């Protein structure tokens, strides 16, 4: 089946404007007849739900936590990009577009990325008007800072809690609408299935996490804003409840899954400290503005960092990438840290860490300025590790952070299934093979505030509202399937816990399909995953019943889906015999050890189609065409 990206005709800078002119509209009086289901309340979900309700649609919003404000967008620290060019340092929509598409290693859709850069400025305006307390200068004007992969300062921030503040802005908008009753909130609900009738999304099945009851909701469109799948690796910077279930279930109902192998490993995380470790904590990329990354020049140099003289230190990023230095993009910073540690030069008790040193910056600007900029991050580091970064360098190591892959969507953010829209991290569209820092917040809010509210009307204008209700047979069938699955999970009563099996899968993937990948190891993973899956379905122990709050059962359902999804993640990595962004194939590198892209064979989006249990998924290719940004070798030297 050919994939129609629906990218509009015309010159790149005019596409979005022209497209909006051609989109069909729903009459204001008719909007209230349409019901839209929004799943997930991070930046994308909350902003979309609030904006759709403002337009007059009936909106039902579902989230897994007890309140929409808890979604994991809240943990984003560093900032949000926009092309305002307030610092007068040469920024523009074109430059933000180019940096983002180059940062993504030319594996994203040009028109989408351009549109993202184009609406970035409106996001800042919107957020300021909502009362987001962005950092300001003494003059009262907004402050900016730099982030990886850019040579301009275009990142707006609210201390180290930018995600929190942006999410509160969107949450406030959501609550404003909820008070008006056009928007209804359903917290502590987990989506377990998508209901598809006549090849269009018509509703969802959710489990009420407090009572275990399965509930069916019908809608004229379904919007998935359920985030990424980083937790398939068990250890990641994601919150514990982040999961692949909603998009995986949608995939099994026909939505194509695009580029699952594009996973981002973030370079600055607190290293793993024990087997019991439940998650990894990110230290914002903004720290690389003032922190210098180094390791001892000589293997086996175990002196405390302060006793290692300059001449015995290797500032490897500054040495290898003089023009970007410590601010190279994430994939490059991560791989270089791994490379040094693999050579035995890593520091700390495990040898799997490098230093991120603030001594020079403290000397230059003083500890109080550093505290102003990074106080909460330094405090968090000290809480977790017991070491004070004002006194000793931080120790950091890469960890799974973000997933660029996700459900395939067209220019309107609709999947190949009619009426199923996918926004934010859950879709694949804007970050290609690597996401730049401070771009996730930008994309989530661009999709939710400014893109989806325009494009969804075009779909709704072509259908009649309220065509199906949850009494339809297909709803009942999906509900029964979900119920049977839950009973099956509860009936196994084996010997292993859900977490044990999840950890086993995670370690396998980190080892075989993590920061660097090789055909041999990927094939080993493909051998192993079905074995772990079988072990799970035969020997897992899920205690308790369905008819109660049962956190073991929730986890079990998610791990069951990871065990299926992991296979397509690895298959995608295996089929892409090139190195691009976060996907680094050891077979595909230059003599200097840099990633070697293969534009001739792999300049496409890999969209996978589910063909039934036990069947191989079918690969569909959406060719990527670049009119404006000609793919070049991605050099940061």
């Amino acid at each position, binding site marked *: 089946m050919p994939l129609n990206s629906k990218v509009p005709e015309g010159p790149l800078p005019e596409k979005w404007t022209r497209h909006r002119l051609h989109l069909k509209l729903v009459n204001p009086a008719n909007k209230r007849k349409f019901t839209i289901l929004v799943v997930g309340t991070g930046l994308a979900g909350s*902003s979309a739900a609030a904006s759709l309700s*403002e337009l007059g649609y009936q909106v039902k919003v579902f989230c897994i*936590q007890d*309140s929409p404000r*808890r979604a994991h967008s809240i*943990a984003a620290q560093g900032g949000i990009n926009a092309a305002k060019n*307030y610092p007068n340092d040469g920024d523009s929509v074109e430059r933000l577009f180019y940096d983002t598409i180059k940062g993504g290693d030319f594996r994203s859709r040009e028109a989408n990325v351009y549109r993202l850069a184009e609406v970035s400025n*409106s996001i800042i*305006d*919107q957020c*300021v*008007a*909502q*009362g987001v*307390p962005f950092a*300001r200068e003494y*003059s*009262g*004007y907004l402050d900016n800072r730099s982030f990886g992969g850019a040579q301009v300062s275009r990142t707006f921030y*609210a201390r180290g*809690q930018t995600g*929190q*503040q942006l999410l509160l802005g969107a*949450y*406030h*908008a959501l*609550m*404003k609408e*909820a*008070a008006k009753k056009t928007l209804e*909130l359903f917290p502590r609900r987990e989506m377990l299935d998508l209901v598809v009738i006549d090849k269009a999304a018509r509703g969802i099945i959710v489990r009420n996490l*407090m009572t275990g009851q399965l509930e069916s909701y019908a809608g004229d469109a379904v919007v998935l804003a359920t985030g990424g799948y980083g937790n398939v690796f068990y250890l990641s910077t994601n*919150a*514990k409840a982040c999961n692949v279930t909603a998009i995986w279930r949608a995939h099994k109902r026909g939505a194509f899954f695009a580029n699952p192998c594009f996973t981002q490993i973030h370079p600055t995380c607190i290293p793993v*400290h*024990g*087997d*019991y*470790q*439940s*998650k990894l904590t*990110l230290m914002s990329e903004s720290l690389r503005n003032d922190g210098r990354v180094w390791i001892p020049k000589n293997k086996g140099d175990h002196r405390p960092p302060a006793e290692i003289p300059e001449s015995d230190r290797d500032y490897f990023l500054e040495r290898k990438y003089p023009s970007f230095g410590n601010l190279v993009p994430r994939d490059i910073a991560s791989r270089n840290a791994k490379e040094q540690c693999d050579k035995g030069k890593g520091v700390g*008790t*495990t040898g799997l860490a490098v230093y991120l040193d603030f001594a020079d910056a403290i000397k230059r600007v003083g500890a109080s300025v550093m505290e102003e900029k990074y106080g909460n991050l330094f*405090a*968090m580091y000290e*809480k*977790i590790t*017991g070491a004070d970064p004002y006194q000793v360098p931080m120790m950091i190591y890469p960890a799974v952070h973000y997933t660029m892959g996700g459900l395939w969507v067209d220019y309107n953010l609709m999947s190949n299934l009619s009426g199923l829209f996918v926004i934010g991290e859950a879709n694949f569209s804007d970050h290609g093979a690597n996401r730049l820092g401070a771009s996730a917040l930008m994309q989530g809010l661009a999709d939710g*505030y*400014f893109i989806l509210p325009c494009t969804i009307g075009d779909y709704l204008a072509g259908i009649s509202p309220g065509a199906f209700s949850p009494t339809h047979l297909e709803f009942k069938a999906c509900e029964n399937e979900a119920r049977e699955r839950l009973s099956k999970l509860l009936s196994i009563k084996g010997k292993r*816990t859900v*977490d*044990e099996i999840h950890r086993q899968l995670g370690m396998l993937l980190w080892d075989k399909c993590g920061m660097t990948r090789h055909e041999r190891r990927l094939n080993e993973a493909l051998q192993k995953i079905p074995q772990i899956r079988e072990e799970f379905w035969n020997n897992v*122990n899920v*205690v308790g019943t369905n008819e*109660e*709050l049962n*956190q*073991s059962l929730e986890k079990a359902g998610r791990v069951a889906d990871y065990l299926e999804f992991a296979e397509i993640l690895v298959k995608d990595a295996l089929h892409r015999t090139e190195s691009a962004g976060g996907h680094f194939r050891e077979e595909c590198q230059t003599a200097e050890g840099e990633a070697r892209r293969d534009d001739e064979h792999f300049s496409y989006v890999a969209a996978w189609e589910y063909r039934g249990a036990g069947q191989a998924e079918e690969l569909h290719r959406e060719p990527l065409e670049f009119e404006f940004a000609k793919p070049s070798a991605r050099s940061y030297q």
Partner: protein
Amino acid sequence: MNKTMATTINLTLKVWRQKDRNTPGRFEIYCADHIDTDMSFLEMLDVVNEKLIKEGKEPIAFDHDCREGICGLCGAMVNGQAHGPLRDTTLCQLHMRHFQNNATLVIEPWRSRAFPVIKDLVVDRSAFDRIAMAGGFISIKTGSAPEAHTLLVSKSKSDMAMDAAACIACAACVAACPNGSAMLYTAAKAGHLNLLPQGQPEKDQRTLSLVQQMDREGFGHCSNIYECEAACPKGISVTNITRLNRDYFLASRSREQKV
């Protein structure tokens, strides 16, 4: 992962177990042995839960998500202190190095009439959402915002608003308050928005609505005990309460004058 010098401690836990809202709860005693002091408090509970599951018993239910102190989901009373003994710290960021070997830890859910227990340590904090719904926002529609720099905000005002906006709505303030008051949460919400120029047009109405909803939810009254500030993992200051009282007085007076 090999670790050269792991320090471990043994603990006795007295944990509140309650099947659901309507079933009476009780304390159960568990041994938590060989706890690595680098673990977080929640990782310690994970270890206890894994053992319970292995024994075929129900694990302790507790809310948690980000485990980096920002989502506000986790929280419990540990030996009578909300989020445990360490200041400015959520339960997920509390590490076991702060506990003595052989200590007994009493772990209870937040206790407040307005937060019914759902199960074990999990409580229903939807009252906080309803307070936010009553007026915790600035009414700006998507798309209608002016260029950001047409509005200047003094750095000090912006910083004060940010101090208030740092609230994570964990509800430790309510749990710590002898009156079960939600004044610090409500004041932080009001403070964030009332301090900013963007928040001025709706300031009076917001202040009155927030307070009215807080009272409706069945929280206790604030009598300036300030346990809330001491328990707050984000260091939200009681100055916000003073400011809310002042804003409330002014808003009520201006409403009376209108009447």
